């Protein structure tokens, strides 16, 4: 149960709550991703081989176009998600979610909680699902998805994915209006306590500049092609493909695409073809993971 509502306490509370539900607690994937879903623990694991898979982890996410040079109180190009993936989707999953809110100091009975239709689709992953955005007093604090397809393949049994937007959630719980004011550690300022801004403001400023102005687009275009080639090469041997390293290249390519997008150097007509290229990498990596590359 929650003792304080610092950012880090919310994370450790969520971790212990979902550990108690039988989830394996994982650590973030060690490459830049746009969403917690990209973690192989979600994308590949829901395609098998275990019919039962429960995992929870924090995932730092990068969305280069959302950078605001540290000037917008709500938008970040780097932020955290807490991801819970459970397969097959449990019957009481909605209630478990609501209990988890209570566990981190947000009693659903004291608030207006809404499940608002939000169908999720990731063109780059060839993935889709149905679910909701979850509103608490008008604020979207989580995404809830029943995975139907990943990499273009049916997810069987269906998995449920819960994604908590940690900054939003913490801002809501701490009742503050600027993300940089978030209390990170629950320690008093004069005792060396840190805010979110103390830790990330400089990073937001520098990376916004990097994402929008300074990244080397020539090099990025090359990196994209290199990742694509390497992904293909890793799957060349159809009997012994290296699914995980191939998927790693897919993740890299996806982030590079986002960086190029932030520079505005991908025209509307090219955009679709880049998305398609990443999707093909995701799809063949998924096929390799399922041992179906030969089929």
């Amino acid at each position, binding site marked *: 149960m929650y003792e304080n509502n610092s950012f880090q306490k919310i994370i450790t509370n969520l971790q212990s709550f979902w550990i108690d539900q039988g989830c394996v607690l994982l650590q973030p994937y060690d490459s830049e991703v746009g969403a917690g879903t990209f973690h192989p623990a979600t994308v590949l694991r829901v395609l098998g081989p275990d019919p039962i898979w429960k995992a929870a982890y924090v995932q730092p996410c990068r969305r280069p176009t959302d950078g605001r040079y540290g000037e917008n109180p709500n938008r970040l190009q780097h932020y955290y998600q807490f991801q819970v993936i459970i397969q097959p*989707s449990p019957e009481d999953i909605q209630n478990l979610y609501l209990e988890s809110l209570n566990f981190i100091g947000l009693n659903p009975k004291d608030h207006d909680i809404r499940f608002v239709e939000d169908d999720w689709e990731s063109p780059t992953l060839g993935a889709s699902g149905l679910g909701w955005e979850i509103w608490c*007093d008008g604020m979207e604090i989580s995404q809830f998805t*029943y995975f139907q397809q990943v990499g273009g393949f049916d997810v*069987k049994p*269906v998995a449920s994915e819960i994604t908590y937007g940690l900054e939003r959630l913490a801002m809501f719980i701490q009742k503050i*209006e600027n993300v940089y004011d978030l209390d990170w550690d629950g320690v008093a300022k004069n005792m060396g306590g840190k805010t979110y801004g103390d830790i990330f403001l400089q990073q937001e400023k520098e990376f916004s500049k990097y994402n929008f102005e300074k990244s080397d687009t020539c090099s990025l275009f090359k990196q994209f092609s290199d990742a694509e080639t390497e992904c293909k090469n890793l799957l060349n041997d159809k009997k012994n493909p290296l699914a995980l390293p191939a998927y790693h290249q897919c993740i890299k390519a996806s982030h590079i695409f986002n960086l190029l997008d932030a520079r505005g150097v991908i025209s509307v007509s090219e955009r679709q073809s880049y998305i398609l290229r990443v999707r093909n990498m995701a799809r063949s990596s998924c096929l390799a993971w399922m041992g179906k590359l030969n089929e």
Partner: protein
Amino acid sequence: MNNMNLSRGNLLLEFFSEEIPARMQLNSERQLENLFTKSLTQRNMAFESFKTYSGPRHLSIVIKNIELEQKDQKIERKGPRFDANQKAIDGFLKSNNLNLNETIIKETKNGKFYFHSQIIKGQNINEILPDIIDEIVNGFIWPKSQRWANTDLKWARPLRNIVLLVNDNPVKGKVRIGKDVFLNFTNFTFSHRHNDKKIIINKIENYEKLLEDHNVILDRNKRSHKIINDTSNLLDKEKLKLLIDKSLLEEVVGLVEFPNVLIGSISKKFMKLPREVLSTTMRVHQKYFSITNKEDNLESKFLFVANSIKNKKRDIRVIKGNERVLKARLSDANYFFENDISNRFENWNEKLKDVLFYEGLGSLHDKTIRMANMSNIFAKAFGVKSELAKQATLLSKADLVSEMVTEFPELQGIMGGHYAKIKNKSEEVSKAIYDHYKPKGVSDDLPETKLGSLLSMLDKIDTLVGFFTIGKKPTGSKDPFALRRNGFSIVQILVNLKLNISLNEVTNPPLKEHVCSSKSIKISLINFMIDKLKFVLSNQYNRIDVVDSVLNAKIVNDLPINLISSRVESISKFTKNNDFKIFLSNFKRINNILKSEKFSNDTELQVNIKIFETIEEKNIYNHMNSFSIVMEEKGFCVKSQDVLIKSLIKMNQSISLFFDNVIVNHEHDNIRINRLILLKNFHNLMLKFSSFDFIED
């Protein structure tokens, strides 16, 4: 129903699921009622009435006075004739697994036949219901649906519980929703999440009340009324009003089980944002209603509907939370707005070069250039200055790459208008850009100004003609680019502005811009436009036959739209005039003669006046010539259409006399043919005005 007895009772079926999207709920009620009543009718089971309910999680139907026992059914099978050969009789017995003594012989109007009749015992409703529920569950069609866990069944969101009661008693049974996965029928449902209770339903008649006591209003109309009533209780005394938004209300009704109307404040510093930005941000992202005051200005308040019963402490907390969210949203909008107003139209237009309008139709920038090229040609007809028209076209699409419109596509045009004004473009140009996506449907308003209408028309005609030239015209039910609506909008503008411009003049410039010289594309384009014109004029004048007659006149493509309108109006007016009726019947008589003589040669043959035998022929000929001159002089004059009809009517007498005294079928072929040519020429002349045979008597 009077002869009610114990063999009838009430039934309750409830599907309880996780939150169903608001937009699907109303239709799911209709489906439930259709599927259930269909299943009952197929089984010959009568009932008196039903009522359906839908909300986020509860979808249910109560059926009153349904038959509890199915009637026995007699099934009769006809066999071979009584005197048929033994092989046929044996075949009948064998295929039905019968002995001869189980058959009877009956007289029919075709003779005596073997018959076998069988009584199928009616079943009790409890035995039938599992099948019916199975049919309903599997017959449901959702716009989007999903599997969950190990199910094969697809539902909009996971289906968690099925309540089934007959005469207040639970019905035993289950439905299969996947391999080895079943849902049992139960007698309990669930309350509002704030109560978090399992509720056992003991009496069907208490169902609605019971759930309302647990903060679930099942009836969506009741929820809607509660919202409306609570809203006026809150606003009326302050003389404030909601910005009416029916589709938002319907959506909100589908998002709450127990509506609680609350009002929050908007920080004053955001009130300088254009009102469309404020209300769109509130509506799209937050599903809030905007509030206006007596002067129809936006108040710095918003109204929203929480899903809870009233509770002062909680309500304050919920309002504060929503205010915080809106503040963040509006900060974002404000950020876009500030960035946009420090940007320049030139930059945006440069960016438009990279935005594809459609494969084969160039970029959005190319589109504005085409529109600019055409603006000059149309400016005069619309009565606007051509420099202004050109300027408006070149600025019209810039906002599509602004940050605000990227975030809120529905603000296209509107933002362009605001930005143009802020950047000191002329008032007229700003207004035109603001309005140029109108009219969005047959019932939508036109742009307020002529310049706006011109801009709208140019935008739409470029799109329409463009897609026609790349072979994407609408076919059957497929119209992915909404070209039909586009066509309607163009015609609405042309008709309402009473423009002195013909369909040829409307379509030639865009065809030229799209470098298209294909005859067949032009023809299908003109036919498409005539079809839309027909619809719009018929709506306006309420006489489809008259509209048809004018639109089937010769060279209608060259007739100015205002002339077509005024001709339709004049003829419609005259359809009640007796002399005009005589003219019509004469015209139809001529039409019939020409038809029966198969005299359909379209080329205008010369009448030989030297072989006229009668004064009647001569009279018609002379009338015809003078009408021809009047047509030349006044045919294109909008105000003279009544005069033209009157001069048509003047010919009545000579035509009648012709029919009375002249026989077309003269024994000499040359005279016969000359008379036919005379009639044909007369007919052709009339067709220049209107194809009168379309007009109903």
